[in-house]
């Protein structure tokens, strides 16, 4: 499943639609501690987290994850929204808990393949 297909699936709210929509989502990945995220997030991951600030975006760039999904109703603060726009990073949000949000990505990507 690509980022574009995840957008079209319409299961999460779209906070920012970035570039590279053709990027393949490799797997969902859940983590909130950024020191772990920056070393463990797989390339192409749909990264599910509750941390919504500029550092989340910086970690995404470092790891080449495909997109961010903010779970549990977490939101991006204003500077982070600006940065996501500048850097063309796709960010979703959802009221779902972290596990359920990741499970949605898993189910969608397996239904698509």
């Amino acid at each position, binding site marked *: 499943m690509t980022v574009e297909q995840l957008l079209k699936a319409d299961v999460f709210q779209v906070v920012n639609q970035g570039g590279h929509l053709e990027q393949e989502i490799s797997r969902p990945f859940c983590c*909130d*501690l*950024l*020191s*772990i*995220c*920056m*070393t463990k997030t797989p390339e192409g991951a749909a990264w599910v*987290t509750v*941390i919504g*600030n*500029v*550092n*989340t*975006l*910086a*970690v995404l*760039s*470092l790891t080449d994850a495909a997109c961010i999904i903010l779970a549990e109703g977490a939101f991006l603060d204003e*500077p982070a929204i600006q*940065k996501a726009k500048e850097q063309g990073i796709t960010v979703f949000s959802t009221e779902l808990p972290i596990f359920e949000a990741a499970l949605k990505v898993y189910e969608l990507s397996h239904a698509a393949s």
Partner: protein
Amino acid sequence: MSECIELRYEVSSEDFTRAGEASSNVKKKLKQMGVSPAAITKVAIAMYEGEINMVIHADGGHIEVTISEEEIEIKLCDRGPGIQNVEKAMQAGYSTAPDNIRALGFGAGMGLPNMKKYTDEMTIDTEIGVGTTVTMKVKL
């Protein structure tokens, strides 16, 4: 590549909105130069943790990156308060970061341990009240 390439970045104090810019810039440059993805990952992680440390603990500072044929050297220089107990600071899980930093997803005491883990060499030169210089090397 016969000559060294030197890069310098200023890290402003308490400015989380710019933290990570230096490391992502270096990452881009290394990619253009054809450095191996494994080495780029190591440099990016170590440098980003270093940047965050400088913002949290030391009112910023500057970073010097030297790229040669054999290695990448990253020197993090600050004029912060210095590290009281380097041995403790190197322990995973030990942190003196305030709560507001923890709320941002950092401050779990993994910065320095990550920096050591992802580099081939790391030295800490610190003096209380004067500042800290962390020098890291990643072999190519």
